[in-house]
């Protein structure tokens, strides 16, 4: 019984810790694999965040765009011809690309989302 008790205590302690640790390490392993998180909100609520994304040239990047807003948003990089479909409120969209030329490329929201829609933009810097 004593062994079982120790086993049970370990399970009760280890389970929650393992879950929290697992969640955060899985999240950071995703980040290392060249995934960039971009949060989309209307300009008056926080705009694209971050507004400047830096990536390395010639390396594959996955951009995860998360719409935490209550209207649809979009994402286009006109100079690179990157466009994702309308991202509905609460949903997320992924786009994977590789860019070989250095430079600064502005990106925009492509869905009319608020009175300040035209200010919803950011810069993609390729180094």
């Amino acid at each position, binding site marked *: 019984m004593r062994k079982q*008790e120790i086993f049970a205590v370990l399970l*009760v302690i280890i*389970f929650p810790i393992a879950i929290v640790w697992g*969640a955060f390490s899985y999240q950071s392993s995703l980040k290392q694999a060249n995934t960039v998180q971009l949060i989309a909100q209307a300009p008056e609520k926080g705009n694209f965040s971050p507004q400047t994304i830096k990536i390395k040239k010639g390396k594959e990047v996955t951009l995860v765009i998360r719409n935490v807003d209550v*209207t*649809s948003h979009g994402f286009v990089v006109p100079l690179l011809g990157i466009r994702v479909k309308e991202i509905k*409120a*609460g949903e997320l969209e992924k786009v994977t690309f590789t860019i070989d030329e250095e430079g600064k490329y502005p990106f925009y929201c492509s869905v009319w989302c608020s009175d300040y829609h035209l200010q919803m933009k950011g810069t993609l810097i390729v180094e």
Partner: protein
Amino acid sequence: MKKSLLVLTVITLCVSFFLYANSANSHGSPANAEEKQTELGSSDNGKDVHESSGNGKERNIELRAKRYSFSPSVITVNKGDRINIKLISMDVTHGFFLDGYGTEVTVPPGDWKKFTIEADKTGRFTFRCSSTCGEFHPYMVGYLRVLPNWNYYSGIFLIVILGIGSLILTLTGKGSPRDKLFWVIPLSWRFELTKFKLVRALFKSRWFPFIALLINIWVFTIILLAAFVGGFSSAGNYNFGIMMVWILWWVLLMLFMVPFIGRFWCMVCPFPLFGDWFQRGKLISVGRQKSRGLNKRWPTKGRNLWPLVILFFISTWFSGFFTVRPFATFIFLSIIIGSATIIALIYGKRTFCLFVCPVSGFQGLYANFSACEIRVKNPDICKKHKPKTCFVGNEKGYGCPWMELPYDMNSNTNCGMCLECFKTCPHDNMAFNLRPFGTDFMSARNPADELYQRRGTDEAFKALTMIGIFLVFYFAFQGTSGQFKDMLRATTLGGYFTYIAGYTLVNFLVIPAVFFLFAFLSKKLSGDNGVKLKEVFVNFSYCLVTVGVAVWGAFSIGIILPNGSYLLHIFSDPFAWGWDLFGTADFPWTPFLTGATSYLQIFVIIIGLLFSLEYGFKFSLQTYSTPAEAKRGWIPMLIFLIGIHIFFIWLFVG
């Protein structure tokens, strides 16, 4: 047997009327008898193109969508009409999804969309916002009523017929006998699940239900973490914490656990674990029998359901926050876990579960209805057995943590199904039984019984407030009023306090007063002067338990069918970090079986009515001294029950 035949005939008649009415509804209105003939052959595909374009009127409707309501919120048309809707968004992106029809449209802010619906199905259909528009988004709804509303009419017809039928049978003395449920099932029928060796071995193992607790600790760690990192996100419908607790857990509890297995949740609930651990000094093996800590006794005045009635009621004041905001859910769960642990330090055993936990009260009361019980197999063995190890504990297990006397238990109210008595009983004299629904209502057979004495206004008010709380939840989460939703989520402080004041008044004054009036009429009409009015009030209030189980079930159907698909999303992406664990993160919001919702809801409410009529007269026999008085005293209560059931049918499908 003649009586049961009679009842069967009545039920068959009702069902056939119901089916006829609904077949009429899919073939066309009675006015088009000729067309109906020609359409019959092709009715299987369910479409009726000729008629809708031929006879219907054009209806133009300007539908404004504004957080969190539509205006007009209720649209009434006739079958065959063409509804031209111009959907305008007044603020953020909104959508329009029509239950049963499946039409879906979204409209960006400040824009409009035009679309047409051919009203070829009759009934009441909910249209809901289909684009996440904010915290109350899943509850932004309106109703489209396509007349003639056959579901509604047949629902009312069924209720009236069943009511009158039951009254006639009762008054002529042909009602279901006192010891039978619906004439045929003996109330004493039991099926012992623990007679299977495997089940008994499982129940006697100290690892059960501990293993279920472990799984729940795992799940609730994810829930708490998700609710915490989800913070104040306005998209609560994509939060694991919100969805698991308020969509999955609540619905499982109300639709499945409470009606069928009673306090099953208490068996697997992980919250008291830390308190137990502290009190016992051991987690799974048997440690101290006397609780460590201050081990005080809960005050005698509060040793009833009143604290639970009040605490659950107060916690529902905040339903507009914690059902939609992840962080509010985090706080709510933290308070529950924290207070469970702190109370375990001060008071002995499971004082928290018995007298504090907000969701314990209705589970205990409604468990009287459930189809499972833990009882003694052979009382004679217990009489000879000393000491009562099930109460004081032994080396195999703890004395009843719920402070019940397992050897003398005849009600599910305070049995938390923790299974300790299976472990402590050296004679294997405890049994886990399947039983007919609601037999606990009858376990107090005479007023001399201890359980009968214990019945007080606390349980009556628990039953009454559960109806009032249901009404407010219905208006908040399935009702059309945006104004009410604004009050509930406290857009203005004045509105919020008005809501709380009105809500409290309705729950503790208006509803009890109406019920009291009928109890008063019942006593007057019965002519029994020996019975106390309080006794009438309390005894009949148990009818509201079956009513409550049914309406909460119907409510849960209206929550899980439209919103269940969110679960697929949150399983794959529990923290809204963009994960896709099982490949279902992109699964769109898809309402499920919405065409069947109203049928299921009517079905559940009718079942509830049958049980309340069945048990109601038995309560009347318990209350009044002679059968003649019981019959007369039953009439006002029957009218009350018919009345509220018609009201519920109107609420859900009318």
